[in-house]
């Protein structure tokens, strides 16, 4: 019981056990992998999560609905807004709250900006791992402009506590659309630069093509969603399958690639940035008038009717879901978060790392776009 996940076989004399992370520059998030290497080749890999576990689901059972509201966005720091939206949607579903159309559009803007910021962060990490520090610095610098937009809209750079049961916390500030268009234009103009420097680079293709291939059947059988699944050719996207917010009224395609290797996964993310920029633009242009929230009952004494619901959303990493059970009191009875990184970060990662070269461990992990706080919760 005391030995966490002990190795099954005794290590052969030439094999070496290595702790990859959490104190490791090549590690994304506070996550560990225990590698058994022979020379430069990984023989066996075991994921070692739990460094970020803070018992979210238990904490939420102890807090009222309104107290949970600032808590949920901290589930995943890289992409916080989908979690807020999920929580809001779950509570709305249970309590039967209506959301005005304007709030749907504002939510779409926020969710897509969050996706852009998460993907740019991913690009920084990925480029850095491949030793492409210049692109990493540029992407991170450009991400800051998105954070500036968030700051103008919500007052916070990273955590926004903005999407709220019954709508959003406040309406768009004056001149927000113009600011947003400027940022969108800038990002749009940077994308060709990224392509020249990175995605069209021969060395990038050399290092990633054919690496860590995940077939479509395997991906489907192992619960993979999001960009990782779309890189195998399956056009599954919650935004299309079960449209929420304003996605049903917007015009977009789901970018897919066929190969399912590291390269395909990276290119899908790159294509999604472009698509998200267009979605933000569409949502801003088609923004209807009217109120941005519905009036809620007094949140301090608010009791949500008993019931259960499962809502889901397409976060930057895939299908994020929220299973919420209410027993009619002012606190949720049970909350369970379905994180997109969860199936990918443990079983799929362990499988793809087998036989990989030690130089590729970090960027195989990053190509899967794993967020450690989502796995640990």
């Amino acid at each position: 019981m005391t030995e966490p996940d002990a190795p099954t076989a005794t290590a052969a004399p030439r094999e070496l056990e290595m702790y990859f992370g959490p104190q490791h520059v090549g590690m994304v998030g506070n996550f560990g992998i225990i590698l058994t290497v022979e020379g430069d080749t990984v023989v066996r890999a075991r994921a070692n999560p739990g460094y970020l576990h803070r018992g979210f689901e238990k904490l939420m059972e102890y807090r009222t609905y309104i107290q949970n509201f600032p808590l949920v966005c901290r589930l995943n720091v890289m992409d916080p807004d989908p979690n807020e939206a999920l929580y809001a949607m779950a509570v709305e579903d249970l309590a039967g709250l209506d959301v005005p159309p304007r709030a749907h559009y504002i939510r779409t803007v926020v969710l897509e900006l969050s996706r852009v910021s998460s993907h740019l962060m991913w690009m920084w990490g990925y480029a850095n791992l491949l030793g492409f520090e210049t692109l990493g610095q540029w992407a991170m610098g450009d991400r800051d402009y998105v954070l500036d937009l968030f700051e103008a809209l919500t007052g916070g750079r990273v955590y926004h506590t903005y999407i709220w049961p019954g709508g959003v916390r406040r309406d768009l500030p004056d001149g927000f659309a113009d600011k947003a268009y400027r940022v969108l234009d800038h990002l749009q103009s940077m994308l060709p630069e990224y392509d020249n420097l990175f995605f069209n680079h021969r060395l990038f293709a050399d290092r990633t093509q054919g690496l860590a291939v995940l077939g479509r059947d395997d991906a489907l059988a192992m619960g993979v969603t999001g960009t990782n699944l779309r890189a195998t050719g399956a056009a599954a996207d919650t935004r299309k399958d079960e449209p929420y917010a304003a996605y049903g009224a917007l015009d977009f395609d789901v970018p897919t690639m066929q190969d399912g290797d590291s390269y395909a996964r990276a290119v899908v993310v790159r294509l999604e940035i472009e698509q998200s920029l267009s979605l933000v633009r569409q949502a801003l242009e088609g923004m209807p008038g009217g109120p941005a929230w519905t009036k809620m009952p007094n949140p301090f004494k608010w009791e949500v009717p008993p019931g259960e619901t499962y809502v889901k959303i397409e976060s930057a990493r895939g299908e994020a879901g929220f299973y919420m059970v209410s027993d009619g009191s002012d606190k949720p009875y049970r909350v369970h978060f379905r994180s997109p990184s969860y199936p990918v970060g443990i079983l799929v990662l362990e499988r793809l790392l087998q036989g990989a070269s030690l130089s590729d461990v970090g960027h195989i992990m990053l190509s899967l776009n794993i967020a450690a706080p989502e796995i640990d919760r």
Partner: protein
Amino acid sequence: MWVVGIIALPLLAIGVSVFFLGVSRKVTARIQRRYGPPLYQPVIDVVKLLAQEEHVSHGMVFDAGMVLALGGSLATVLFIPVGGLHPLSAGGDLLVILYLMLLPPLGLALAAGAAENPNASIGVSRKLILALGYEVPFLLALLAVMTQEGTTSLVAIAEAQQPSVLEWGLVRAPLSALAVALVLPAMLGLRPFDMATAPQEIASGTLVEFGGKYLVLAALQGALHTYIVIALFVDLFLGGGANVLTFLAKMGVVFFGGLLINAVYPRVRIGQALRFCWKWPTLLALLGLVVVMVMGR
């Protein structure tokens, strides 16, 4: 006079290489749209490291390895003519330099082995494999130059190139020069060939267990290595230098080119690096050797 040279040359080398470190950080920062640290930042770092209250050693072999590495580099510096300065030129030539250049990697390997960190061992093995890769074209190119000039003395080679630009090794043996230029990033440990100290893969590789004054020794050795390789290239192919200043200016140009490549290339895998080194640079160097031998007849 030569006593002054023996003392001055290593000091000059250290000064130049530390200055290069500062420049490299500033230039990289500017390419990355940053302001960057002050030029004298490496000096602050060295002062900080020397002033640390703790220095973790990993035993005699660790210490001896570091001394061997730095000593080897310093000795090499003395044999490389810088402009008119060549204090030990009478006693040495290219072959001596080649032998002396083997000492630093050996010392580093000893120290890293004594540190007993798997990352360090992997870093050393990568470094040695990479050396295996670039030594082949480098030695072939050297052979071509020595055949052409009919001497193994670096001073003579540098002086033979003095008259005009047309006498430069770059013009007279372009294939060999190109071959060495291609493996130059690998010899300098710059991207795309910095896998021996890749922080993101093996957390700084060979340097993982170095701290305090040992890191100073290691960093100094690394900086001197950069100096040696670039000085060799300038002496062999860029006409040496009429005086110290022109020589240093040429070195600066070569280093700057390396920095630009460093900034826009990703890191490759060790296998890819080996394949690259043994393909085009080796072919070019071989071709250059053949051309020299045919023309020389």
